[in-house]
């Protein structure tokens, strides 16, 4: 709660800056239009013109907020296909598309972080894996997913897998890597004395892992998970482009982009950012609770 005032101040500043930017960004088009129509725009007219364009270069904050509101609450409450009228979510509402994306994100994130942790464990415990796998895990991340996403989807389609899974796989692909990098470091964080203690107990690998490496990697794990969930969301959105772009925030972004609906792009973008931020915040909460239980609360 004590964060409230600073957040409000910062947000207000940013919104003010945003409004200030709207005018110069959109002025060109407004003036071009006026010139084409043979009119002359006064200053006040110019300002109001830039705030109300159909396809602005930079939509005004209130335009984005209005679109967000219309495509969530208004659409579901009053829309022809809205929840109130049909009992199921409308495919014109961001709630529906957000949910489609979120489910793929969460599945991909779960698989990705499990895979990342597993790989890190392998790398830390097995010399051969340490020497050989890491460079290729790195190389795998330099392959542009948008390039292989359609191929993955084509191949999976061919063997009859469609829908959620192909998207989740691409989410997985993006999210496992931060976890590997962070966890390799985290699992190697225990200092010599802590490891020596385990040696004197002749603890086996599982015990050293469970009682030393795992707990001391917690700060690294959470830092990685925060990055990973954001990456998983990006993966899900990317994957929605070539799946025929039928549903999900990615599809919204794409169709908005295809039809030049800047405001629609921005509202889908904000919806995605809201999703990402709340998932990151959720992980932050879990982190705080965990570290507190481990006596490491700051």
């Amino acid at each position, binding site marked *: 709660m004590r964060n409230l005032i*600073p957040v409000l101040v910062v947000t207000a500043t940013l919104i003010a800056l945003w409004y200030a930017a709207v005018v110069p960004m959109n002025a060109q088009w407004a003036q071009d239009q006026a010139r084409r129509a043979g009119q002359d725009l006064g200053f006040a007219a110019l300002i109001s013109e830039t705030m109300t364009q159909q396809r602005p270069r930079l939509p005004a904050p209130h335009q984005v907020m209005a679109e967000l509101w219309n495509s969530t609450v208004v659409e579901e409450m009053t829309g022809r296909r809205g929840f109130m009228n049909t009992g199921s979510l409308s495919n014109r509402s961001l709630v529906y598309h957000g949910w489609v994306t979120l489910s793929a994100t969460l599945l991909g994130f779960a698989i990705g972080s499990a895979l990342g942790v597993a790989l890190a*464990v392998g790398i830390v415990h097995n010399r051969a*894996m340490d*020497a*050989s796998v890491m460079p290729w895990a790195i190389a*795998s991340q330099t392959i542009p997913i948008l*390039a292989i996403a359609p191929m993955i989807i084509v191949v999976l389609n061919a063997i009859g897998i469609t829908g959620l899974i192909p998207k989740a796989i691409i989410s997985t692909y993006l999210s496992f890597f*931060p976890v590997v990098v962070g966890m390799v470091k985290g699992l190697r964080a225990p200092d010599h004395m802590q490891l020596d203690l385990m040696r004197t107990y002749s603890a086996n690998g599982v015990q050293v892992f469970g009682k030393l490496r795992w707990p001391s990697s917690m700060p690294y794990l959470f830092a990685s998970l925060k990055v990973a969930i954001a990456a998983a969301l990006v993966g899900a959105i*990317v994957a929605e482009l070539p799946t025929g772009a039928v549903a999900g925030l990615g599809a919204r972004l794409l169709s908005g982009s295809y039809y030049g609906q800047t405001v629609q792009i921005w509202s889908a973008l904000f919806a995605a950012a809201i999703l*990402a931020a709340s998932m990151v915040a959720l992980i932050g909460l879990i982190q705080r609770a965990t570290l507190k239980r481990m006596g490491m609360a700051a």
Partner: protein
Amino acid sequence: MMVLRDSGGVQWAGMTLGLLAAIAFGMTGAEGQPAFLPLAALLAALLVWLALPRADGMAHLALLALMTGAVALAAWGLVVGPMGHVGFWAAVIAVWLGAWMLVAIFADLPRADGLVGRLQSLLAPLTFGATLLWLWEVTVRALEVPRVILPAPSAIWARILRSTDVLWVDFVQTFVKGALSGYAIGVGAALVFALLVDRSDFLRRGLLPVGNFLAALPIIGTAPIMVMWFGFDWPSKAAVVVAMVFFPMLVNTVQGLAATEAMQRDLMRTYNASWGQSLLKLRLPAAMPFIFNGLKIASTLALIGAIVAEFFGSPTRGMGFRISTEVGRLQLDMVWAEIAVAALAGSLFYGIIALVEKGVTFWHPSQRGR
């Protein structure tokens, strides 16, 4: 974990079984010609492996070379010979296990000093990579995967040799201009932002949540906007990269700046060190492991970002442009050639950062002892 470490036995058993299966199913091809070469080579590799522990010094190295040769010969024999039947697949698995044995042995080899040691540490990953590529080649050939779905590595290699000039132009456009400049700006901005936020409590509590929110914007959405704002050429790609690397870098830096021990901070307090001093002398050094974590993750994201951004509009050059255009033209070998260049450039980039990290964070337990 112990099981993993002592997996030599498992691999040996697997390789033997694969070999036996290959013999049992009869390594005969479609035309009925027996494929003796891979079988004989595999058998040789197995025998050498058994002899390996009993030799040391030069003899050990010689045997190792022999085994590598034998596995490679078997691999080659499988590529050129008749393909696709059960015995063939058993032999493929056996070769794969043999290669994994080699990887394990290479990884455990005592490390020489200096340049030889450097090169030596490449042995295991290269063998592993070669095995992956070989599996790819064999699978594509044996299953007759259409060229327009997945070309064989050999075809990709041929394409790389044929198109070096185009690949170079694309590399400069995307990696040097787009990715590197965006990386520098994004990482720098995140560092400055993290310090700003760290400097003032008010800013930390106000900017951090808002910053996290804004930085969580998925780049795919920002790419068309950036093209709209910064034009078709590389500046818009750099802008996307900035947006993409900012968040991981920020999270890691902020976390790292908080990663000092209470006593280390108390010491600074007794000196009445200024914020800048305790930053420079305590918190930044202590944060380095985290900061490098961020730098590494950002390095791969930068390349992806620059390439993906080109999908939303570009001049007629660049790796992303080429990839998306050539997919449409079904020139998949060119697509993979670009991907190979991307992977190589990205790995080198990453490797350089890892090297610097090793120098800077030599004191961290994760670097000191293995």
